[in-house]
């Protein structure tokens, strides 16, 4: 049995894994486990749920590999499985009521001019310099929890996992314009939220 080489492409590994080569599958797990876990944490309620999503993703990938045709990249295919697993968990649980982030949207005067001054408008970009790292990590997680789900999913995939807009559209089954609209709303809310964290009205 061929030992997977470090430079062997994902799709070649996937083809060998689909044909029953266990080391090829193990190499794919090794390559993607950290990324799938990170994605799972960003989409899930807590670490316990993220762990379940991680396990279910690779089990589903293992079982689904024979059907993987290589129409999309292996990573895109795997991300779709992971996202679906996370969304299934979410549907199965009762959503905790969270306070909306609507209040953090930018404000304008009657003429459509930003209500805040330039220095205050800029404040969000310095949140990571101003706030303690651990505190920011906690607050960032809470911020994601407060986003409406459809904005969170698009934002996580596009801006946090850095998929292309087309890949996010494919993963979520929506069109590119809808992805842009949702990511935009999420950015606006989170920008205001960061601003609020550093003590400035957005």
């Amino acid at each position, binding site marked *: 049995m061929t030992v997977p080489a470090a430079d062997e492409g994902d799709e070649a590994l996937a083809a060998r894994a689909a044909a029953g080569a266990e080391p090829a599958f193990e190499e794919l*797990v090794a390559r993607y486990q*950290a990324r799938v*876990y990170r994605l799972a944490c960003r989409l899930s309620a807590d670490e316990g749920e993220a762990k379940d999503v991680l396990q279910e993703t690779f089990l589903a990938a293992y079982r689904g590999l024979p059907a993987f045709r290589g129409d999309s990249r292996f990573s895109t295919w795997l991300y779709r499985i992971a996202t679906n697993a996370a969304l299934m968990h979410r549907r199965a649980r009762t959503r905790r009521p969270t306070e909306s982030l609507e209040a953090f949207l*930018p404000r304008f005067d009657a003429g459509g*001019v*930003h209500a805040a001054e330039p220095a205050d408008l800029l404040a*969000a*970009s310095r949140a990571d310099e101003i706030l303690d*790292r651990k505190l920011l990590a906690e607050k960032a997680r809470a911020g994601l929890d407060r986003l409406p789900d459809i904005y969170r999913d698009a934002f996580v995939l596009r801006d946090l996992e850095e998929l292309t807009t087309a890949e996010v559209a494919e993963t979520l089954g929506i069109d590119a314009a809808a992805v842009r609209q949702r990511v*935009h709303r999420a950015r606006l809310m989170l920008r205001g939220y960061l601003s609020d964290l550093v003590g400035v009205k957005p």
Partner: protein
Amino acid sequence: MNAGLACVDGVEILMDYLEGTLPKADREAVEAHVSGCPRCVAFVESYRQTPRILRAATAATLPEDLAQSLRRFLASRR
């Protein structure tokens, strides 16, 4: 159109502007407005930094014991 674009209009189409999907006339209107508006310059900068800050702050690392339990879990089901 777009003569006298206001901040609120620019914010509305900012994502499309950054993604390069706006028609040329709209793109130029955004640039013309922002270049003369310190508020929008500041806003755009904070809008662009928001994903970076959230990305760094939510980058969970996979604990080694979880990687091991994943291997055990997969081995038990193959």
